[in-house]
């Protein structure tokens, strides 16, 4: 493991004592753990070979947005921009909102620091996730978002995590902790972007108190060379609702672990995700829904299109603990394999220890539907164009489910562009 780490580990970046202590603890935990191999069940289809090289600590960058190739998403609301793990005040925009507290770890006041200390790492089982320890070890700074009890954030909160190409292969950590207090409501969008072959470790922790509603999106729009091993861990208390949306384009190696813990009765999670792979890209989504208590529900849908020499891995586990009666959990994973050299490995898993539950999962690896293709052709749309339109539709169906209109508007042209679909009409204007 030591190979992977540089001596600095960002320990020299100034930070409050509590953060420094966390870095050192993370470093110790990382160094004493072993890098998983393909003999480890959870890493059966993903090789970490690309990480077997020395990485330097990422350096602060002062380049402009243009120089960085950074396209700032305009989803309205506050926007915090980090480049190589360091905050960029000049690119960020903070809109005052009485419903939320939005601070960096390094600037947290005493009461905020106490909340961070209480919750950071509280839903991440460190022994199972060595990369979470690595995140602590390498962390330059993180973001704490608190949504105050009974309040609704007026506008979405955006986080942009960007990497600039660096001289040496660089490693950096990105960390978001969201504390949604009782009956609060907010929307958060995380963008991961950048060029070069940096190794990024993005870790998101969501704590939803009773009755809280949180919409959270994690958009991985990094370059085809990017390395990213990260995760999302969420804890849902009674009647909390989490809408979690994941998008992954490209990446030489992307491994995202999503763990949702239903800890209070009546909690609900809608988890949607999509992956679009070309070239020699590799994306691995491992999701795990822990139903620890009765009366919780989960709707999970992941879709992927995999072409060229790319490979996709999906592992969707639903774990119903003893006594988690009256659970309803459904998972669907559909894949389109579009090339003879591409590969899809999918494993939906059900692990059930309670009898009065409704659980189902389905997975397919197939082609686009023949009858849809025919229908489009009878309307004069040429076969190749029809394929493009249907591929777009296959993925766009998930985008349409997302409630944040500006997010849909942001993603749809990118998707159309990705597929080369000539979609002249923006359907959202059609109702007029």
């Amino acid at each position, binding site marked *: 493991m030591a190979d992977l780490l540089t001596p600095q580990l960002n320990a020299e970046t100034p930070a409050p004592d509590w953060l420094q202590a966390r870095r050192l603890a993370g470093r110790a935990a990382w160094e004493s753990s072993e890098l998983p191999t393909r003999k480890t069940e959870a890493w059966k289809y993903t090789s970490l070979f690309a990480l077997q090289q020395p990485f330097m600590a990422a350096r602060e960058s002062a380049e402009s947005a243009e120089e960085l190739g950074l396209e700032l998403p305009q989803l309205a609301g506050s926007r915090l921009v980090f480049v190589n793990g360091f905050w960029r005040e000049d690119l960020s925009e903070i809109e005052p909102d009485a419903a939320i507290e939005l601070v960096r770890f390094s600037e947290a006041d005493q009461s905020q620091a106490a909340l961070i200390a209480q919750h950071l790492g509280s839903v991440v089982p460190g022994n199972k996730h060595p990369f979470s320890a690595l995140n602590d070890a390498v962390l330059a700074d993180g973001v704490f978002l608190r949504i105050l009890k009974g309040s609704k954030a007026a506008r979405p909160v955006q986080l942009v995590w960007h990497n600039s190409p660096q001289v040496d292969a660089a490693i950096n950590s990105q960390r978001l902790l969201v504390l949604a207090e009782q009956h609060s409501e907010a929307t958060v969008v995380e963008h991961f972007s950048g060029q070069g072959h940096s190794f990024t470790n993005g870790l998101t922790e969501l704590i939803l108190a009773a009755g809280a509603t949180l919409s959270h999106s994690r958009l991985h729009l990094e370059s085809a060379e990017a390395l990213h091993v990260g995760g999302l861990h969420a804890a849902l208390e009674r009647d909390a609702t989490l809408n979690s949306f994941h998008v992954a384009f490209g990446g030489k190696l992307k491994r995202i672990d999503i763990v949702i813990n239903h800890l209070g009765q009546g909690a609900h999670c809608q988890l949607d995700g999509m992956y679009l792979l070309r070239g020699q890209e590799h994306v691995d989504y491992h999701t795990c829904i822990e139903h620890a208590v009765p009366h919780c529900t989960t709707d999970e849908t992941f879709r992927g299109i995999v072409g060229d020499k790319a490979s996709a891995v999906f592992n969707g586990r639903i774990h119903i603990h003893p006594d988690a009666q009256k659970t309803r959990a459904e998972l669907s994973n559909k894949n389109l394999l579009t090339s003879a050299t591409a590969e899809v490995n999918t494993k939906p898993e059900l692990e059930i220890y309670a009898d009065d539950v409704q659980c189902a999962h389905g997975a397919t690896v197939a082609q686009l539907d023949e009858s849809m293709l025919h229908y489009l052709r009878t309307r*004069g749309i040429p076969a190749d164009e029809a394929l493009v339109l249907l591929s777009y539709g296959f993925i766009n169906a998930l985008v349409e489910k997302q409630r944040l209109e500006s997010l849909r508007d942001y993603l749809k042209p990118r998707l159309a562009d990705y597929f080369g679909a000539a979609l002249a009409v923006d359907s959202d204007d059609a109702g007029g």
Partner: protein
Amino acid sequence: MLSIKDLHAEVEGKNILKGLNLEIREGEVHAIMGPNGSGKSTLGHVLSGRPGYEITQGSVEFLGKDLLELDTEERAHLGLFLAFQYPVEIPGVSNMEFLKASVDAVRESQGASAYDTVGFMRRAREACTAVDLDQAFLKRGVNEGFSGGEKKRNELMQMMLLEPRLCILDETDSGLDIDALQVVASGVNAMRSESRSFLLVTHYQRLLDYIEPDFVHVLADGRIIRSGDKSLALELEAKGYSWLDDGEVA
């Protein structure tokens, strides 16, 4: 316009059409009636070029071209339109995106310029109104979650926008209530013209109360066994399809 000669076709190795002949001239409305399993729907699919429908014998000429040589979309470009009995749902692709792609492709093939976005949307909204569909349907996925009647009206709306030369309506009337049937019929009647022809495939005579055909044909066991004017349909309605079995077919 359309000339079908001795057409034989099979689906999954089973002979469905067994020597069908049919001539449709410009401006004519033809109705094909027949019992279940007679091959009515197969005819529409064969003419549109659905995969899995194999022509084993015969010829089809459409506007002077050998139709059977053409790809499905090329047939559409020529002006052949099939309103499906069971239109497929395409989640994720909005009706508007789909319609624009379709109309653009057809117009481009005919050398016409594409509508500008604003102009097209206006036309689409008008078509919606004409078939009594809420404009919200334009935003929804193609046929996604539409009721049976809404799907049929959506088919009709596409037909209006594409302005085809030959419209084949495959049991468009089945499953419609009277109000919806009238909407469909008035849409079709409004589109009737000197240069546009219709082929109505139906199980019931009632559609023909609203759309008056020039010719009525009875299809049984893969062939047209009787042709006549609209009175044939009324006779069929009164006596039932078994009447034919007892007659010359038996």
